[in-house]
């Protein structure tokens, strides 16, 4: 544990230090311009102090972002439009819906691909091709089209999230369901097991480690999908909409605070999946 904590803390400290330097360097121009306009001379220490407290800095200093984050998370009522908790909740619910849809689709396709040779040959190349399509390009259109059909709210965003997260799960599950080797499959045949038995008692259990590994990738992808789906739709709520509004009005601190909320949310989701993975694999006796 100590072997990891110290290096990670060092790297993080270095990042914060670089960030402060960058904040001074990038914000200095505005301070100098202001001073030149007022016909004043600024000393270096005044310059540094002034770059830390701007209202709309080019690069907000870390403590400003933390302040903005704290204000958004704890300084507002949860129902307020400025509350990051509310926006994060909206993004989170769409992410979860998309994640469930994408996982179900991925598992269903994987089961079909493993059992039907014709599906393996026809669907798999297209599943791969579907991922080279920058789906986010379709995001605004999917939302406009679905809105014109009367479908609004969570579902359009969830569909984009589902599209992004079904592929890692499909690939992981195909690999996992094929993980049992010849010997194990032959063993089940000598026991005269049916196809269903082979699936439930051998293939599905042995796919679990692959399943959880791809769930972690999938949930992060679903979150990215939801955030981008919130960008172009003219949505007023959700972390993506916060980002877009911040960029329209030059509110850099708001952008960074929304970005960090998204990062914390992503981290929490991955950790939760990791904990579930540990518990399930332990109960199944797959962790040594």
């Amino acid at each position, binding site marked *: 544990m100590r072997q990891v904590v110290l290096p*990670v803390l060092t790297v993080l400290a270095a990042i914060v230090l670089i960030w402060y330097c960058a904040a001074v360097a990038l914000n200095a121009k505005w301070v100098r311009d202001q001073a030149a306009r007022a016909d004043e001379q600024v000393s270096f220490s005044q310059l540094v102090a002034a770059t830390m407290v701007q209202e709309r800095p080019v690069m907000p200093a870390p403590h400003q972002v933390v302040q903005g984050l704290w204000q958004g998370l704890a300084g507002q009522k949860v129902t307020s439009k400025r509350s990051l908790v509310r926006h994060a909740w909206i993004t989170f619910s769409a992410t979860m819906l998309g994640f469930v849809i994408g996982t179900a689709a991925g598992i269903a396709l994987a089961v079909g691909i493993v059992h039907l040779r014709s599906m393996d040959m026809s669907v798999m190349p297209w599943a791969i091709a579907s991922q080279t399509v920058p789906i986010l390009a379709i995001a605004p259109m999917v939302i406009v089209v679905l809105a014109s059909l009367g479908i609004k709210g969570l579902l359009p965003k969830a569909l984009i999230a589902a599209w992004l997260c079904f592929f890692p799960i499909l690939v992981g599950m195909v690999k996992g369901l094929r993980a049992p080797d010849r010997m194990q499959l032959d063993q089940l045949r000598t026991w005269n097991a049916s196809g269903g038995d082979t699936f439930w008692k051998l293939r599905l259990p042995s796919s679990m480690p692959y399943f959880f590994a791809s769930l972690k990738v999938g949930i992060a992808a679903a979150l990215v999908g939801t955030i*981008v789906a919130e960008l172009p739709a003219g949505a007023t709520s959700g972390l993506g909409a916060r980002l877009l509004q911040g960029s329209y009005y030059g509110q850099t601190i708001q952008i960074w605070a929304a970005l960090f909320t998204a990062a914390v949310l992503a981290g929490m989701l991955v950790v939760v999946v990791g904990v579930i993975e540990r518990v399930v694999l332990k109960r199944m006796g797959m962790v040594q």
Partner: protein
Amino acid sequence: MSLLIASLLFWALATVACWQIAARWSQARWAKMLVPALFGATLLFLWEGIVRGLNVSPVILPAPSQIAARFVDSTDVLWMDFAQTILKGALSGYLIGCTAAVLVAVLIDRSPFLQRGLLPVGNFVAALPIVGIAPILVMWFGFDWHSKAAVVVVMVFFPVLVNMVAGLKETDPLQRDLMATYSASYGQALTKLRLPAAMPFLFNGLKIATTLALIGAIVAEFFGSPTRGMGFRISTAVGQLDMPLVWSEITVAALAGTGFYGLVAAMEKAVTFWHPSQRSDR
């Protein structure tokens, strides 16, 4: 209505054909090409049949034939957008980002301390919604392709870095001992043994990064762009309800994405021909 029935009939027939071909000639080379092609053709046919048969408004979903017509009509606009977004934004960002990631990976390779510190951070950042920094970078680098390239650099950097660091660890002690008995210097061992051994991992990262590069370049245009570019065209065409043009842009994006991925995959095949995953008789 008859069109709808015809397309459904075609779908049923093609499914049976796919099934039969897959059952009988699954190892044949032509079957491996034909079955996916047939499946794709059925999807297009079904789409055309449903749109025409049920009179779906082109504002909701244009038929493939309409999209194809619009595509042929507006090749010059599409080419301009392609050059702006893919060639200038995505490609330059991809090259800079991947080169930087490989260089950093080789540099931190000598320090286990930095590796232990950077890898968890890199893994964490690789899972973050990095597209979110697009508005910030657009603010810094302006509306033209430079800001798009910057977004792409940040997006591809971490996946490639994490893969490359993992790849550089791939050699086993036996191989490194062999290099030591040859009294190979650090540089020689790096170029003759460890870089080649890292290639399968590197290409894994490079392939993931192709899609990320296109996504980054297009999404960054939603936050501000000159009056050309695929992201710009998509968002304005949606506003004008010009869906065939939107779908033409998506076709371009899909073709570019597939081509880009195919190119990297072909390079991988040429570079890592020795790796077990490249053998045909698996």
